[in-house]
Every structure is written in C-alpha cells, then in structure tokens.
C-alpha cells in the first residue's frame, strides 16, 4: 500500500511561519529591531559616503576640470623670490587652446574693520589685486553685492572672499560697509561665495588692479595666473606653459590643476566610513544573536506545538523549515525596516547638507541580503533543535 508523502506548500509555510510571529508581536518586533538598527547604520554610512562623493563629482562637473593655475615656482636653493614675468598673461593667451586668462597679485596691505585697530591684527586676511575676469574664470558666484567691473576697478572698492567677510563680521553690503584697507577706506561692494577652485582667495579682499598699482604700489607682475583651456587639450597645454611663460627659466614656473584635488577627495575612501561600517556590522551581529535567542526560547515554549505538528503529519524537515522560516521572516522584516530607516537617515543628512540625495542600490540590496544571511545563521540551531525533539517528548506536558 503506498502513502502520499507529507507535504507543505510554500504558501502554507509562509503562513505557518508568520503565525508564530503574529502571536508574539512585541517579542518579534523587538528582535527585528536589533537587525534593523544594524542594517540602518550600514545603509546610512554607505549612503552618506556615496552622497558625498556624488556631491564632489557634481561640483567637478559644474566647475570644470580645465582650469590650470600658474604660479612662480622655487628658484635655486635660497632664491625664493622667483616671479612670473610681466608678459606672462600675454604669452599664455597666445597658446591656441587657451580660452580665458585671469591673474591675481598679492597686495602688501592689510584689511581692518576700523582704522583704530593696530595694522598687524589682520586676522589672516590678505589683499589681492585682480582683473575683472577672475570671477568668471574661477566659476565663482556672489553671495551678496556685485563683482568688480572696469570702472570700479579704479575706485576704492573691495570684494570680500566668503571667509574674509566672516572674519570681518560683514554679512551683507547693504548700507555701504567700509573697511580700512592700506591707508584709506574702501567700500565693500560684494561678498563672494566660497571658491572651490581657489580656496586661498576665500580669505582675501579683492580690489581692482588699476587702483592697486596706482595707490598701493603693487607690482604689475602677476602673482598667480588662472587659465581655462580646451577641455580636451589640458595636458598638452600644461606641458608648454613653463617654457611659454618664462623661456629663460621654465623650471621656475609651477603649473597645477585644482580639480585634481577634488577628484582625489572623491576617490578617497573615508576612514570613518570603514569605522561606522564596522560598528554597523557589530550591531547586526548583536541583532542576530537576539534573533537566535528569541528562537531558542520559542522552541522551548512551543514544544506542544511541535508535538502537535508531528502528530498532524509534519516531518522533522517540515518542523525545522518552519522555524528557519520564522527566523528568516524576522530578519527580513528587520532588514527591510533597517534599509528604509538607513535611506531616510541618508536623505535627511543630504538635505541638511544641501546635497543631491544618493542612496546606493548596493547598500539596499546588500542590507537585505546581510539581514537574511544573519537570520539564516541565527535560525539554524533553533530549527535543528526543534526538529530533533522527539514527538512523544514534545507532547509530554509537565
């Protein structure tokens, strides 16, 4: 006589596994919470670090990678007064792919809020003389007021870098704020936003080159030259710059590309990311131990259910699969909650930073996969224990 083997449909398995959890809601949600916290931490760390990278790359896109900076290099040993020739700008414009050239020269003066302070209390703010193209070349923006134009370059007006404005305590240019620059008052006509391609200008007050030369004795030689080239020929231009600027001493010309620094920052993996990922992993592990604990207790408590199911025809495998599925359901619930929580944390952080919201798919999928893996490992022992329980022992009531 043949017997149809005991069977348990997948749909029924899901139902049976969820009944055990539904009848112990508080305990189930607390143990799922452990997993959720671990997963949320990992997803948020991955999300925030990816958002930060995306933000840097977006900045690169906006700022362009075709800006080159030309500065006087080190001369011979002990000879640190190497300068760029006065003809530098003219020569650089002659290089075919060069599209835009602008320069800045340091002015030997200090900027003060009032004329009653000692002249050496500069708060680290420098004064630079610049031409009118500078802001455009550096893709800078104005936080308030206006940039220099040809007419005002001859007048005693200044534009402050973002950091310089903050240090001087100037937040807007509304009612003709003045600063004591050199030996006279300059009216502040604008405050720049941070210049990501020329951070050293953030702590500067910029004035027009004509007034600097005429009244403050600034030399006509450019201190730093910024130039934009055809994006496809940056390297070619870069190689010919030293000889073009200073044919006699090309080794006294330094050329750098500020976008390289941003690219490097975007590529660098943050040490904190690794640390927080590690903490997330520990939280996840603790969550897994919590699930294992809850499942072991559950097996002890539900002896009679196990006995009943064996009496109804469940095989050992049916029993172990049921308990394993419960553990997986718990961890999957925790994983999904954790992924949502982690994504929410990332979104809030990005919004506060004003970044574009980036939640990596790898983090989401990986989070749920990690939760399921933990659940499987945590559920294995309790499930095996439940399956090993002899039905007669399971049905014996004390």
């Amino acid at each position, binding site marked *: *006589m043949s*017997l*149809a*083997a*005991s*069977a*348990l*449909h997948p*749909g*029924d398995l899901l139902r*049976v596994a969820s*009944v055990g959890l*539904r*009848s112990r809601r508080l305990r189930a949600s607390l143990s799922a919470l452990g997993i959720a916290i671990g997963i949320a931490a990992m997803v948020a760390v991955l999300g925030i670090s990816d958002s930060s990278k995306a933000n840097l790359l977006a900045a690169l896109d906006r700022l362009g990678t075709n800006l080159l900076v030309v500065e006087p290099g080190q001369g011979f040993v002990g000879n640190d007064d190497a300068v760029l020739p006065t003809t530098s700008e003219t020569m650089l414009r002659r290089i075919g792919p060069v599209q835009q050239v602008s320069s800045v020269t340091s002015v030997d003066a200090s900027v003060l809020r009032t004329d009653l302070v000692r002249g050496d209390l500069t708060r680290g703010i420098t004064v630079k003389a610049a031409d009118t193209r500078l802001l455009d070349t550096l893709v800078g923006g104005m936080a308030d007021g206006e940039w220099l134009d040809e007419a005002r370059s001859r007048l005693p007006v200044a534009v402050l870098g973002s950091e310089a404005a903050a240090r001087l305590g100037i937040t807007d240019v509304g009612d003709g704020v003045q600063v004591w620059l050199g030996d006279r008052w300059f009216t502040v006509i604008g405050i720049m936003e941070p210049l990501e391609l020329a951070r050293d200008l953030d702590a500067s007050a910029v004035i027009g080159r004509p007034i600097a030369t005429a009244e403050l004795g600034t030399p006509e030689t450019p201190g730093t030259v910024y130039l934009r080239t055809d994006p496809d020929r940056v390297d070619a231009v870069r190689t010919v710059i030293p000889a073009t600027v200073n044919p006699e001493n090309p080794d006294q010309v330094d050329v750098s590309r500020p976008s390289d620094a941003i690219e490097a920052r975007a590529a660098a993996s943050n040490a904190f990311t690794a640390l927080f990922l590690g903490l997330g992993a520990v939280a996840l592990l603790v969550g897994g131990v919590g699930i294992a604990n809850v499942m072991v207790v559950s097996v002890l408590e539900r002896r*009679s*259910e196990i*006995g*009943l*199911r*064996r*009496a*109804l*025809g*469940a*095989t*050992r495998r*049916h029993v172990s699969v049921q308990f394993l599925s419960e553990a997986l359901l718990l961890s999957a619930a925790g994983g999904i909650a954790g992924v949502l929580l982690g994504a929410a944390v990332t979104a809030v952080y990005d919004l506060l930073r004003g970044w574009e919201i980036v939640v990596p798919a790898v983090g989401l999928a990986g989070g749920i996969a990690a939760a399921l893996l933990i659940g499987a490992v945590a559920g294995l022992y309790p499930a095996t224990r439940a399956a090993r329980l*002899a*039905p*007669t022992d399971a*049905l014996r*009531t004390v």
Partner: protein
Amino acid sequence: MTSTTSTTSATAAAPHDVIRLRDVVKEYPGDPPTRVLHGVDLTVGRGELLAIVGPSGSGKSTLLHIMGTLDRPTAGDVEIAGHDMARMTDKQLSALRAGEIGFVFQQFFLLAGMSAVENVADGLLYTGLRLRDRRARARATLAQVGLGHRLDHNSEKLSGGERQRVAIARALVGEPSVVLADEPTGNLDSRSGDAILGLLHELHADGSTIVVITHDHGIAASLPRQVAVLDGRIASDSGAARSAFADAQMCAPAKTEGVVA
C-alpha cells in the same frame, strides 16, 4: 522468524483491522532499562469505539504513542491501517499520521491566534491538499461536531467543551482510519465531558474508529469495548469475548493475554 509470519497474516487481515499490535515491548534506556510495555497484543477493528483504561503509569500513554506511530516499539510488530511500522522510515510514518491517524489531546493543543476553521484546516496541513479545499472540509467537519456557528471564532474565545470539539474536528477532518483520543474529557467539567463522550458515540455511529485512552473506569464503561492496562500488560479485554470480532485472528492474541495476565 516469527515476525515474518505474523506480518504476512496481519496483511491478510488488514481490511478489517485498523490497529494490530503483536507482542509489543517498549523499554526506555537506562541502567537497568525501564520496561513499560511487556508484550502487548491488541487488535482494533474498523469502526470500533473502545477505551484503553488504566491508572497513571500503567503504560497506556506509551501504548497510545506507539499506536499513533509517534514512538517505535523496542520489540514486537505494529501495523496501522495495513502498514507495517518496522518497515517504514520516519518520513513515511509522518505521511501515515497525516493521512490515517487523528489525535485528540487532553490539553486540546489548539494554536493560539487562529480561528476554529484554521485550526481544523491545519489537520490537513501536511496532506498536500490546497488551502481552499482544507478550509471547505474544515467547515463541513466543524458543522459535523456541532460548531457550525463558531467557524470564525478565535480559538481562545471558545469554551473548553467547544475547544475540544474543534480538536476532535481537527482529528476527523482528514477522515483517518483511526482517531486516538488521549483523556479527551480530562480538562472538562462533567457536563462538557459527557457532551464530548456523546459526540464520540455519534461519530462512532457514523462509522469512525475511535480509541479513547482514559484513567476513568466510568468513562470506559460507557464505551462498547474496554481494554484494561496494568503494569504494561493488558489485564482484560472485553472485546476478546465479543462475537462480532471473534474471528480466529482476534481470538489468538486474547487467549495468550489470559495466560500472561
């Protein structure tokens, strides 16, 4: 070997007998081993309603577990619904329980948080039947045990007697060859207990084979056949003398019992 011959003869008698135990011995390991069943012979025919009665520690629970294939005997032959237990794997025994044996327990063992219908439908959970069919049969069986009006009640909201009816419906829903009821009235007041016994009589009249395990001689006396168990042996079996089952297969073990007892 004797077991071979007994198996052959048992198979021949299978259509009439649902349970055949022959010289069943059960020992639990220890030093010395504890022997709880000393060579039990028992045959239950199809359609019978009988009581296995004995004090606690008499071995009647062990007997129930062996008849229910929840435990294997140390020695002897067990045949349930024509299947020789010794030749079956654990998996096959599970299938046998799913299809041929229904259990009713003193503690009901209903699953909390589930309705009456769901509890009864779970009696068919491991048979491979689809959920819809299981539910339909569960509703029909609940109506049969007089709970047609309590289908969707949560099991925790039912009275003790109603819970035991649900448990009986769960045992019956798969139309098993035999229902094994372990102290089915043990947790009930006398009125509900009487009602449950009445239900068992009705089900018996409809053709179900029911074995009731009890320590209560009064309950045993109300059933058509009583098998008294004492110290792991069958002390008396009223069915052995009954002409309805007095064929050669039935009488032989009964005579042996007389000698042993």
